[in-house]
């Protein structure tokens, strides 16, 4: 009696399987997959087109805000759970640069110690003189703003979008065009708000522009993102006659023109001049500015919310979402 055995033969290609299963069925499946993929691609293209063409109050933006409101609690929870791991990763990463930074900081500390005593005296003198002269000069940062401290819940998803998400939204009083800072300096500006989260466009974004001035020489210009995707900035539109030296501090200009005011209050530190150059064919100086804020390790930020009654004009160019 012949014995029947079953053997499993591995197939190296799917062609035999196709033959065994029947070509029409395979073709139908392939056609269906192709059709669905095509529909999804067209749907994606439609989403992109509508999203870019509609205003911030459009249907898709609204749906996205609702979606973000649903997802943001998970992101906040994820951020809290992930924080120790992130800190651990940050610690390990920082160790690589710690040795070099240590020597640099020690040298800097010596200078700062010497300056600290002078600064204390100068600050006292300054305060006294300001009171005496009743120095009122344009928007005064501490008077017109209150700070909303919050956490960063999402970092830029790629190098093209220099935007972060923060865990404070309209519920905390945050509005579009509110400046965002850290104790080190300017971070960016709020460009979209939901009830529990906001999007902040960093000053390193290619479409950001901040009117700024050199503290030491008062040379005025506009701080923009540098030509590369690294964190360096450029101080643009500074006349070739103006004097700018390496090491100068750059702060927000906080201009006032009639009833209009800059979006950024005056005197927020932006960065330090690390390179100055000019060529005969250029209209302006070429000034490189290294930001004071380390955008790679942003964890907590402060949103400057205007106090009631502090009028703000929205004239300064900020990133406009298409």
């Amino acid at each position: 009696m012949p014995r029947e055995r079953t053997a499993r033969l591995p197939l190296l290609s799917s062609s035999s399987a196709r033959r065994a299963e029947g070509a029409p069925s395979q073709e139908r499946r392939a056609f269906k997959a192709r059709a669905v993929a095509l529909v999804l691609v067209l749907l994606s293209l439609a989403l992109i087109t509508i999203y870019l063409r509609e205003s911030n109050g459009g249907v898709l933006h609204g749906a996205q805000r609702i979606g973000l409101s649903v997802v943001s609690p998970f992101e906040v929870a994820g951020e809290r759970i992930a924080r120790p791991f992130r800190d651990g990763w940050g610690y390990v990463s920082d160790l690589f640069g710690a040795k070099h930074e240590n020597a640099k900081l020690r040298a800097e500390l010596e200078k700062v110690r010497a300056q600290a005593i002078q600064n204390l005296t100068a600050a006292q003198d300054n305060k006294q003189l300001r009171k005496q002269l009743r120095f009122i000069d344009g928007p005064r940062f501490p008077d017109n703003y209150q700070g909303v401290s919050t956490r960063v819940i999402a970092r830029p998803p790629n190098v093209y979008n220099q935007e972060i998400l923060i865990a404070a939204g309209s519920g905390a009083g945050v509005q579009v065009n509110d400046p965002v800072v850290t104790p080190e300096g300017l971070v960016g500006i709020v460009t979209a708000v939901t009830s529990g989260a906001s999007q902040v466009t960093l000053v390193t974004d290619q479409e950001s522009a901040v009117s700024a001035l050199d503290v030491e020489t008062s040379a005025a210009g506009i701080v923009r993102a540098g030509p590369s995707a690294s964190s360096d900035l450029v101080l643009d539109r500074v006349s070739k006659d103006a004097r700018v030296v390496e090491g100068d501090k750059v702060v927000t200009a906080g201009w006032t023109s009639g009833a209009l005011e800059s979006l950024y209050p005056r005197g927020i530190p932006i960065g330090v001049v690390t390179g100055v150059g000019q060529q005969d064919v250029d209209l302006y100086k070429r000034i490189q500015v290294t930001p004071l804020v380390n955008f790679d390790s942003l964890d907590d930020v402060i949103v400057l919310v205007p106090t009631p009654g502090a009028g703000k004009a929205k004239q300064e160019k900020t990133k406009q979402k298409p």
Partner: protein
Amino acid sequence: MSGIDALKAGVLLLVAAVVQISLISYLRVADGYPDVVLVLVVSIALLRGPLFGACAGFWAGLVLDVASFQTLGLTSLLLTLTGYWCGRFGDATTRSSAHPPLIAVALATIAVALGSSLLHFMLGSSVPASELFGRVLLPTLALNLLVAYPLYRLCRRLFPPTQRARGEVSVAV
């Protein structure tokens, strides 16, 4: 495409997107970080074919775009194409391979980086090619290859290959 598989893939990609945004995007080497959502889409597509891969890619992209407040549809477009292509790739080779789909992950990473760069360039944002390759693509590629095997194993457990997909056939002798 079974409902259970779709549900599992939907939840897995949703969780992965949240983890990606809140944790993994901080684990940067230069400007690159492991793109677990991409690797999961590739793995799922390899295991379940182009139809499932395209749908998984679309969903993952949509969640990422919403959760990171980016242009809606941009990531969906890239991941839909990636999912579809990887599904075809899985069909053309075999889904029973015990080896991690390193080739698929590598090619998908490069394709998504270049596609993303092209789309952003068309939308007005650009990055110098040297930085894209040196600071973004190479670290991301290395990190994606590093996580490819464990994530593929996880997906194989969640989405076990069907008999047809195992590339086996019973023959009476």
